[in-house]
């Protein structure tokens, strides 16, 4: 009983402060990186943007289901989990498209970045093939 209560409290705490903590941590990393590169403006804007994102998400979390779903530790049902999977799939598709187009563009213009785009495209392709085999066996 007490374990359930502490689990629930921990989840609530994570859900409440997870966004702010994650955004602040990422903002600080951006700030430190910007400072290390000697670009203070870039570092400070990164921190400000991340903090603003966390505040907007926290304020709208109770009113918007989407904002709630973007919060870490949110208790999700099957539909909300499906939304997460679909959003992840769309993100992957867009990234893959950008990487493949980027590869052809950099390859055609003889840019050194073609190797990076090519490596990323190969990784995306292999991950897709591997995960298809994995889930075909598992499901």
């Amino acid at each position, binding site marked *: 009983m007490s374990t359930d209560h502490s689990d629930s409290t921990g989840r609530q705490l994570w859900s409440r402060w997870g966004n702010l903590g994650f955004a602040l941590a990422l903002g600080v990393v951006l700030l430190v990186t910007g400072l290390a590169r000697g670009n203070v403006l870039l570092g400070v804007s990164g921190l400000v943007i991340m903090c603003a994102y966390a505040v907007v998400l926290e304020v709208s979390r109770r009113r918007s*289901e989407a904002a709630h779903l973007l919060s870490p530790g949110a208790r999700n*049902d*099957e*539909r*909300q989990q*499906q939304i997460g999977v679909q959003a992840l799939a769309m993100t992957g598709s867009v990234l893959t498209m950008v990487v493949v187009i980027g590869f052809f563009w950099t390859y055609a213009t003889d840019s050194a970045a073609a190797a990076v785009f090519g490596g990323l495209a190969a990784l995306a392709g292999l991950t897709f093939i591997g995960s298809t085999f994995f889930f075909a066996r598992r499901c």
Partner: protein
Amino acid sequence: MRNDVRRLREQMKLSQSGLGEALGVSRQTVNAIENCRYDPSLPLAIAIARQFGSTVEEVFHVD
């Protein structure tokens, strides 16, 4: 897939939140099912039917 969730819920004088709580899903998910924007999984469809004392076939109708 059409369903009678809204009609059965209103008959039982349950709110969407109340039904969601009983089923362990969110109010938004109950709303999505009622408006045919989301087809529940088989376990959830069975749970919904049991909640109303009906069978899945009585609650959900394949067009």
